[in-house]
């Protein structure tokens, strides 16, 4: 082992130490912060964009960027509502259909990038608008809830199934929120795939040097498509969680989901000095954002500060990752 080096140490542990210090400060200043209920609230507040960020991680690893995940999640919300409330489908069939549509969106993005050769940023930006617009069409631009009047003047008589709503609102043992467990489950699966399997190694190889990857026999295009499909699939799963929590189909529910998800994944670069997208860092990044927002709100921060603070954290984490570590590495 090399001898102790303060720069190495801070690159590796700096972010987690800052997080720990913040956690302690919040707990001391506001004891209610530390209650189990509040801690689960934090996790609950991050589980939608945190899940999406895990999908985005696939794409970031292959050196791409998916800007459409917020819209895809919002589309899933509307489709869930439309299928159950208007068409009166069951919860299970709805979930399958929504996930299927997520896969189709991902395949289409992959097609645009790999076959039509649109640069990924532009392709997914275009798809962001397209999918965002698509969500309004089935309901004629209106939110969908029980009793809503849809297009032909007929009242929608269906409703969200209880099982479906359980995914967003349920609590195991009356404490642990189901969507949090789902996020943790997704995180574990994504972690194993990206960090432990040969597929993860290949994704990282493509991100590191696509030409070299091609020359060791990797079908680069296939893996890129898989990355975008994973990202869209997980985004549509996050959309299901959101629809289940709200219990209705609100238009425009993408809100700040995209930026929060990408922010979490990018903050993840700084965790354990990874300097690259990684699932563990992504989930820590998401929790960090949630903790910060929750703690500051409890200390009476006004809502309009939120975006500014999230942005500052992101810029600081990136400066730390690329500024210090690069010079050092």
């Amino acid at each position, binding site marked *: 082992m090399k001898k102790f080096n303060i720069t190495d140490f801070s690159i590796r542990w700096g972010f987690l130490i800052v997080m720990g210090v913040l956690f302690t400060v919040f707990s001391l200043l506001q004891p209610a912060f530390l209650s189990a209920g509040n801690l689960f609230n934090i996790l609950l507040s991050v589980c939608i964009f945190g899940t999406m960020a895990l999908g985005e991680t696939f794409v970031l690893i292959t050196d791409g960027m998916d800007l459409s995940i917020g819209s895809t999640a919002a589309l899933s919300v509307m489709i869930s509502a439309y299928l159950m409330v208007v068409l009166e489908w069951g919860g299970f069939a709805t979930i399958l259909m929504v996930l299927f549509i997520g896969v189709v969106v991902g395949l289409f993005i992959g097609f645009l990038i790999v076959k039509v050769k649109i640069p990924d940023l532009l392709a997914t930006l275009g798809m962001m608008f397209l999918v965002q617009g698509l969500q309004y069409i089935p309901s004629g631009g209106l939110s969908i809830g029980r009793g809503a009047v849809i297009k032909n003047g007929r009242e929608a008589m269906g409703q969200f199934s209880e099982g479906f709503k359980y995914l967003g609102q349920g609590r195991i043992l009356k404490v642990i929120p189901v969507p949090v467990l789902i996020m943790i489950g997704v995180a574990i699966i994504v972690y*194993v795939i990206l960090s*432990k*399997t*040969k*597929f993860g*190694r*290949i994704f*990282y*190889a493509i*991100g*590191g*040097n696509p*030409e*070299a*990857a*091609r*020359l*060791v*026999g*990797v*079908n680069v295009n296939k893996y890129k498509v898989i990355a975008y499909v994973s990202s869209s699939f997980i985004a549509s799963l996050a959309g299901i969680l959101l629809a289940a929590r709200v219990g209705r189909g609100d238009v425009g529910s993408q809100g700040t989901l995209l930026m929060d998800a990408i922010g979490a994944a990018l903050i993840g670069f700084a965790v354990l000095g990874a300097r*690259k997208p990684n699932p563990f860092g992504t989930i820590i990044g998401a929790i960090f954002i949630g903790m910060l927002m929750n703690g500051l709100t409890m200390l009476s921060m006004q809502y309009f500060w939120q975006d500014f603070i999230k942005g500052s954290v992101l810029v600081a984490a990136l400066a730390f990752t690329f500024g210090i570590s690069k010079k050092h590495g």
Partner: protein
Amino acid sequence: MDREPIVQVKNIGMSFGATRALDNVDFNFYPGELLALVGANGAGKSTLIKIICGYHSGYEGRIIVANREVDLNSPKEAYDFGIQTVHQIINQGVIQSMTVAENLALEEMLSPDQPVVYNYPAIRRRAGEIANLMDLNYLDLDVPVFTIPQSDRQMICIARALASDPKLLILDEPTSSISDKEADRLFTKLLKLRDSGVSIVYVSHRLHEITRLADRVGVLRDGKVAGELVKPFSVQNIVHSMVGDIEQNPVRKKDSKINKSVVKLELQDLVFQEGKPPLNLKLYEGEVIGLTGLIGAGKSELAAVLFGADKPFSGRMFVNGEFYEPSCIRAAIDNGIFMVPEDRNNNAVFPEFNILQNINIPFLGMFTNSISVLSKRKERKEAARMIKAMTVKCESEESPVLSLSGGNQQKVIVARWLMVESNLVILDEPFQGVDVKSRREIGQYLRDNIGKSTAIVIATDLDEVIDISDRIVVFNHGVMVGEQEAGSIDKERLIQLTSGTLEEILN
């Protein structure tokens, strides 16, 4: 000579790390003279040119332009002294997305004297004049440069250099990507330019061009001036001064490991470049073939076909007697055909990966369980075995690959493909940017472990192929023009085969 040199370089030296690229080099460049600069790869030609054109600062020695000592620190400074250079890598000289006209008149377009409002018709007019200098009137001025062939891009660069009225014009391998007809046109222009008083430095591996064009030949060998030849010169005496007297015909015993009864790879009437004659070649078990030839001779094109990256135009390939037709690179790998590509940094190294990950990447399936999870233990074991076998100098198998020296990085890349048994390993320029010691070690390991496989080592540098091969195959303009067996190598003949014109060689 009583003429005044337009540019003089005196006692020029340059080191890159431990490598001495140039040492105590003197040259005078006279107006109205074409000086050809020759030398093997790594002899220092490019370094010298880059110093004169202001690209390398931090050289030793003096540069004198028109009797005044100058300090060249940037290409702009050299340019202001009337030194114009056309570099070998054409695509660095053109802006792909701009039109032919804009590229031709690039200097005018970017000049601070241009009016604020962009006047395309004026640029286009000027471009027409510049095109005229090289008889390029057939070019469509309004199409983007990426749509026209390499050879036309090269001609654009040359025309642009001529347009600036250079005092010293340096051309680095200007004919490597243009046709013979275009080359003829270029030569006519160059001679005319020389007669008008311009000093020209012409770098080429194609010696027959040099005998035709040059007034004087400067020879570089191992970073030093190995001689200056004046007219009349023949390909023969140029070759002789490039090679030197020492180690004329290095003797390497023919290896007994070759098993001529087993043909590993057979090429039957293979056409791998459009319009070229078919190639027939057999590679035997345990044999290391050295494939040499100048840039553009078709070496890498053959490698691409063997490795499944390109499709042949016609003909058939057999591996172990079985018909072989790879649909993609993966198919080639599955057939036991591996390739260490040229240009390690761009094509082989995964910069963010550690040594182990860089070695194991093509064969991850070897290390996984039934659900594709990698076994760290198995990965470590194999990587450590290869690191030891190839004497890679590193702290551990999990050190970052970029922490290694160039030679050791190359060992890692070679180790990647020698880890499992193969039918054929192609190594494309495996010794570029590799120190001599590492080169010997890689070569030794390859020879010792060739086993039942066979290898093709592609190298432009003759010393490298002579060092490693049981048999040397020479390509020239896409045609196999000769082969020599280890033990009876004639280096001068090899240089003639690589550098001569096809008519000279085949008749």
